[in-house]
């Protein structure tokens, strides 16, 4: 469980991006952090991913402040897929996945290879193993990036705007695919794409001006938003 407690983050230029935000991400399911651009949702994601340190409040992972965790332990429990994916272009899909297995989890080359291949197959993208990132489509690249994160078997996986490079038809396929991945981990999806959130998430928050405006079951959150 991840608990965000009264977190605030102000950038060096004085912009107050996140202002006293609290929320809880459950161990299971898909959780959506929604909001328009500038609502502070990506800043919040960067705080949860420990790329930014909030000036106020705390973020707890299973009761422990993430600021007190060792980097390598934290990274293995909380995965991140960036908006621009940041796949490594000089490595093929399989090698992209093997790198952390070998260097972070200390697997041998053959173990890493077998494990990565196993995940790709379970995610139904085994045929992409030998391709380089430039050789796969936008939708496939998104799945590869998620597969790469899942290789470390994290408890949580943060996805930043996963649909920004996908067209409508691909988005719907992708939402379906993501729902099937719940057995692997729980997802926290940061998105401005409300229909996509509706298709995937069970619960969510809607942020505006650095604060939580609505939260709860996703259907309720969206209904309340419609009413406003």
């Amino acid at each position: 469980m991840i608990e965000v407690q009264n977190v605030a983050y102000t950038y060096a230029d004085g912009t107050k991006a996140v202002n006293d935000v609290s929320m809880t991400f459950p161990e299971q399911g898909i959780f959506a952090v929604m909001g328009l651009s500038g609502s502070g949702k990506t800043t919040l994601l960067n705080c949860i991913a420990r790329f930014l340190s909030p000036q106020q409040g705390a973020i707890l992972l299973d009761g422990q402040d993430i600021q007190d965790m060792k980097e390598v332990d934290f990274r293995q429990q909380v995965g991140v897929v960036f908006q621009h994916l940041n796949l490594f272009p000089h490595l093929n899909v399989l090698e992209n996945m093997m790198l952390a297995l070998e260097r972070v989890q200390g697997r041998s080359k053959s173990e890493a290879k077998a494990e990565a291949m196993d995940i790709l197959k379970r995610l139904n993208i085994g045929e992409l193993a030998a391709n380089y990132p430039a050789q796969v489509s936008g939708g496939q690249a998104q799945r590869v990036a998620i597969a790469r994160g899942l290789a470390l078997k994290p408890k949580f996986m943060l996805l930043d705007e996963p649909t920004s490079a996908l067209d409508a038809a691909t988005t719907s396929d992708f939402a379906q695919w993501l729902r099937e991945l719940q057995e692997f981990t729980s997802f926290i999806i940061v998105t401005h794409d409300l229909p996509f959130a509706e298709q995937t998430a069970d619960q969510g928050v809607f942020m505006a001006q650095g604060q939580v405006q609505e939260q709860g079951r996703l259907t309720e959150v969206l209904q309340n938003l419609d009413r406003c």
Partner: protein
Amino acid sequence: MDVSREIAQRINRESRIVATEWDGILAGLLAEKYDAIIGSMAITPTRQESVDFSTPYYHSGAQLFVHRDNPDKVYSISECNGLRIAVVLGETYQHFLEEKFPDVEVVTLKSAAEIFAMLEQKRITGFVTDRLVGAWQTKEAGRPFVPVGEMLYKERIGIPVRKDNPDLLGQINTALAAMEDDGTMQRIHQRYFGLGKTSSSKLGTMEPSVIATKLLKGFAVSLGIALAALLLGFVLAIPSGLLLTFQRGSLKPLHFLVRGFVDFIRGTPVLIQLLFVWLGLGLSPFPAAILTLGICAMAYMAEVIRAGLMSVDPGQDLGARALGLSPLDRFRFVVWPQAFRIAIPPLMNCVVALLKDTALVSIISIPELIREAQSIISVTFEPGLYYLIAGLMFFAVTFPLMKLSDRVERSIKAKGFAHD
């Protein structure tokens, strides 16, 4: 050369011919690259300040030569005002003309071969050189050049040695006196400058197999120097490139040190660096050439590596960090492999530039391709042909390198590497 061999024999010294440029010949003597110069050097008070001369072994003087057709109709140097008269760079004639005939347009060229080519094409009116040397060279090259007018002045030709070497000077003087006495000197003069006897000699031609061997050997030397300099440069360029990129904390002083050094190397002519290392630091020609070209290659390749590192998307490092990789692993497995691939095409351009720069080391008397071409030209007097061949030999290596670089660049772009 006959004089030098004869003297060497008489003083029990090994005579090893060192080829060098005329304009740096005294500097080379002072830097102990060789011990004496037997090359028709005139005895002048200025030169006597820095070196000692042997007793004169022949007397000659400055002579004006013109084309047999004599389109400018000049019959002495005093008729040459406003006309172009060539001299070899660094020879005494240049000073003399500028002082005594300020209205003559003095053209300084690197070698007799260049002067001959210019006069053949009638791009100059004539040239001034030593009367005997000029007569000999003209005859051997089979050129239609003739001496006109009186000698401009007479001069004594001696052998310069360093002032701290009186023993050698004494030995040379003894040898010269003996050669004069037993008629050896007379015979040598006869052979080179005498009429009739040598006019049918074949000194002006060279066997094609000899030419080919000289060119190939020279090119092998060029390639060898380039390769050694490349290895040195590349090994130094990697840490330098890193230091140029990262300037945090304790690396800061080193960063600025490398920055300054690289800027200095890139901002100064390689020729000066080469002469500095050779004559200033006193290194032997080969180490001087490899060190200079290697350091120069380092400077350019370090910049290329820096640019490569800078053009890797920062998201790559972040992506690797999100996977829990250590800073060293992030650099080693994610950032560096991409930076290096991006750097390959410009690095190959550096290799091409380095290969071409080896031509410069000819001036520090390394027998590489250009030097060998010059030595062939000094006999055949066909600069157009042999400089073209030398150029083509370089191109035969650089062209495939350039094509390969294009291919690598295309494949890198196809793989979607950061590229700005």
